[in-house]
């Protein structure tokens, strides 16, 4: 076994790393390219770009390429690849003793999918090069206008291992914070770096091993904890009786919510309830309530129909105690209030706003799943096969570590669209066995993904 691993590493050493640079026109790709080429890193670099003449340093080779994107059908896998890249990389590999690194610059409007898939499907390219990472430049000043009018900028963000928020000197700091927050919601796995004139440490963008299975869990699980299917929670001390929940109108005509009994208003009690609530929020068929129809604390998801004017729903409390209400949308935005039987408003003991993950305007999002336990291998295979066949088009990147029943070793995977790459990794040892997955894509159905994966767990 040791010998095999060594052999694999030997092969790996011969593979020339490739970094893909994406970003809109004006985001600073050429500046970054020039910076990489002139930086004293001792590497001989070949650049494949779509325009000639903008960069070039004596010892490097700059090749102009016209993006030729073709559909490839091979058995059950259907994907798009860059034919021109296969040809040019194939030629460069014949001079590999002279190049240590290859940079591929895409056009401003490019979907990074075909570039990434090229490294999965061609036998020669797989044998001799390895995709190191996708670096996306974002023009911090002008990107806002592109969010609305183009899918490409979102795709470029979704595919990235590293995102450079460039030109921050032209934008107010609060604006950059907001932008970073928005981008973080689209791609929780990427490293986000703020730059001016694309000044960045080369170690942050080259040799980052973003597609390397050994680094598949470069995912920080704390990002996953930030994600909740609800935006707000309020904690109330309620007596027995019939209370009233009042909600104002908002952007949505419905509001999903969960009401649960909670031990107290402490952090520990909250943490426990949050997990249960998140699970309830993934219910496919919520209990629908129209105005004046009663609610009660229960392990179920309610869906309230909202009206133009404030809507009122009775809450039936049998046992006095502390209760928490989780709401799909912001509690302030929808003016969520609780009144007692005597029409007096009850102030929450505690109210928490959660970062919205299911943001209303973003079609590109990340879905993280982090759950202890073991998967049943056959169920997992079926789930992945169906998922990639049906939704692979919308999954841009995925990666994760899985705990498979009866296997002492971690299973690591990563993939692009329908292309899946996975293998057993080091043993779990004393570490708690759990499953951590991240999907980044378009119109991802969080509940479907979460429920689908939960169904693969051994009961």
């Amino acid at each position, binding site marked *: 076994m040791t010998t095999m691993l060594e052999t694999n590493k030997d092969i790996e050493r011969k593979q020339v790393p490739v970094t893909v640079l994406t970003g809109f026109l004006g985001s600073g790709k050429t500046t970054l390219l020039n910076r990489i080429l002139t930086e004293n890193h001792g590497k001989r670099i070949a650049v494949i770009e779509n325009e000639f003449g903008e960069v070039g340093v004596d010892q490097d*080779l700059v090749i102009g390429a*016209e993006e030729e994107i073709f559909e490839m059908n091979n058995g059950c896998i259907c994907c798009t690849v860059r*034919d*021109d890249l296969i040809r040019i990389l194939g*030629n460069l590999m*014949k*001079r590999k003793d002279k190049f240590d690194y290859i940079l591929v610059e895409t056009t401003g409007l490019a979907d990074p999918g075909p570039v990434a898939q090229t490294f999965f499907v061609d036998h020669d390219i797989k044998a001799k090069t390895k995709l190191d990472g996708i670096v996306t430049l974002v023009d911090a000043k002008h990107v806002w206008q592109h969010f609305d009018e183009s899918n490409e900028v979102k795709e470029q963000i979704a595919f990235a291992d590293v995102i450079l928020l460039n030109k921050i000197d032209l934008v107010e700091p609060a604006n950059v914070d907001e932008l970073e927050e928005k981008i973080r919601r689209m791609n929780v796995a990427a490293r986000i770096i703020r730059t001016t004139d694309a000044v960045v440490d080369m170690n942050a963008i080259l040799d980052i091993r973003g597609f390397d299975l050994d680094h598949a869990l470069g995912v920080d699980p704390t990002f996953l904890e930030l994600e909740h299917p609800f935006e707000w929670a309020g904690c109330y001390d309620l007596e027995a009786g019939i209370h009233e929940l009042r909600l104002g109108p908002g952007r949505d005509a419905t509001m999903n919510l969960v009401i649960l009994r909670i031990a107290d208003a402490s952090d520990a009690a909250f943490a426990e309830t949050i997990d249960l609530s998140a699970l309830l929020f993934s219910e496919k068929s919520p209990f629908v309530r129209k105005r004046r129809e009663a609610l009660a604390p229960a392990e179920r998801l309610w869906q309230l129909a909202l009206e133009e004017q404030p809507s009122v729903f009775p809450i039936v409390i049998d046992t006095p105690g502390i209760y928490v209400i989780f709401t799909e949308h912001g509690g302030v935005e929808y003016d969520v209030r609780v009144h007692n039987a005597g029409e007096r408003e009850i102030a929450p003991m505690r109210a928490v706003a959660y970062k919205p993950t299911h943001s209303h305007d973003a079609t590109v999002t990340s879905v993280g799943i982090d759950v202890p336990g073991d998967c049943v291998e056959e169920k997992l295979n079926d789930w992945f096969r169906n998922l990639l066949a049906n939704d692979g088009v919308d999954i841009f990147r995925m990666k994760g570590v899985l705990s498979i029943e009866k296997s002492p070793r971690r299973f690591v995977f990563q993939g692009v669209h329908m292309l899946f790459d996975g293998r057993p990794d080091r043993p779990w040892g004393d570490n708690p066995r759990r499953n951590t997955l991240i999907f980044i894509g378009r119109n991802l159905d969080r509940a479907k993904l979460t429920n689908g994966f939960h169904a693969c767990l051994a009961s």
Partner: protein
Amino acid sequence: MPGVINELAPVRNEPASMPVRWSNAIDDYPIAVSWSPDATLIAVAASGGPITLFDANSGDVHSVLAGHAPGTMSISWNADGTMLASGGQDGCAHIWSVVDGTELAVCQGGSAWVEHTAFNPLGGTKRSNHLLATAAGRTLRIWSAKGVLIREYPEHASTVSAIAWKPGRQELVSASYGTLATWVPSQDSALKSFHWKGSILSIACSPNDKFIATGDQDCTVHFWYTKTGRDLQMAGYPAKVLQLSWDATSRFLATGGSDTVVVWDCQRSPEGSTPLQCEGHEDFITMLAYQHRGSLLASTDATGLTALWHPIASSKPRALFKMPDEAVALSWNSTDDALVVASGSGRFNVLECAS
């Protein structure tokens, strides 16, 4: 009793080792080796540019042609071996005089890499037979032996991925994404074009002009009937198929794309037939070539192994030769008794292959 034992002992046909006539090296990756049609010279093109001509008998350097900066991509001999054409990353094709190493003509076609060059092997005394075809980007061109542009065909819809002259004819075949087309020097429009939704990488025309075989990115081989345009698809290869070679009789097509040499028998139709499978390579096939007239097939692989086969007689190799690193180029001499194989390190060997 010993006699009986002898009779029962299995006949062991261990493959022979191919004797090395001579070997030499260039200090670069050889993108092509090619034996001149008169068998006197071997051209070795370096990835970095220069093309070295070696005396095929002694192994000494005959002359060095400058080639292309920053890289040469293809070479082709003319029919009588007096001229060598080359294409490169400078966007040009060059025609060299082999006798004195001078550059006879520079064919300029823009900035795109000239990835493919092919002299028509038709030859003969008619000057008009000695035509050079080049492909750069989406453009296919035909030049006279003096470097005069005879025809620039309308742009292909995508990059031209392979070209080949039909054996014994003044007819050229080109491949690009989704299209296989045939052309003649006398007109702009294609004689015939065949369509299929996929990326075609390599072409081999059967000597009898019945088939054009193609190797494809999606791990298939296609047979196109030249008369009707009917198309047979052979799937199941583990990788893209770059290596194709017809035998002289047009009955067998040898194909790579895996670690097994797969030989299709086209006597009736390859459709539904079980191909011959030649097993003995240790890694993916890198090059394949049948003899010009004989029935022996040479193949090389990524571990540096060269194998000589007589596919119709045996699925096992009859002779082997091993180099320490990946074999990347292969060429038979015109008398079919020797072949040259080159490895990625630049070393190449001339091997005896008596039929």
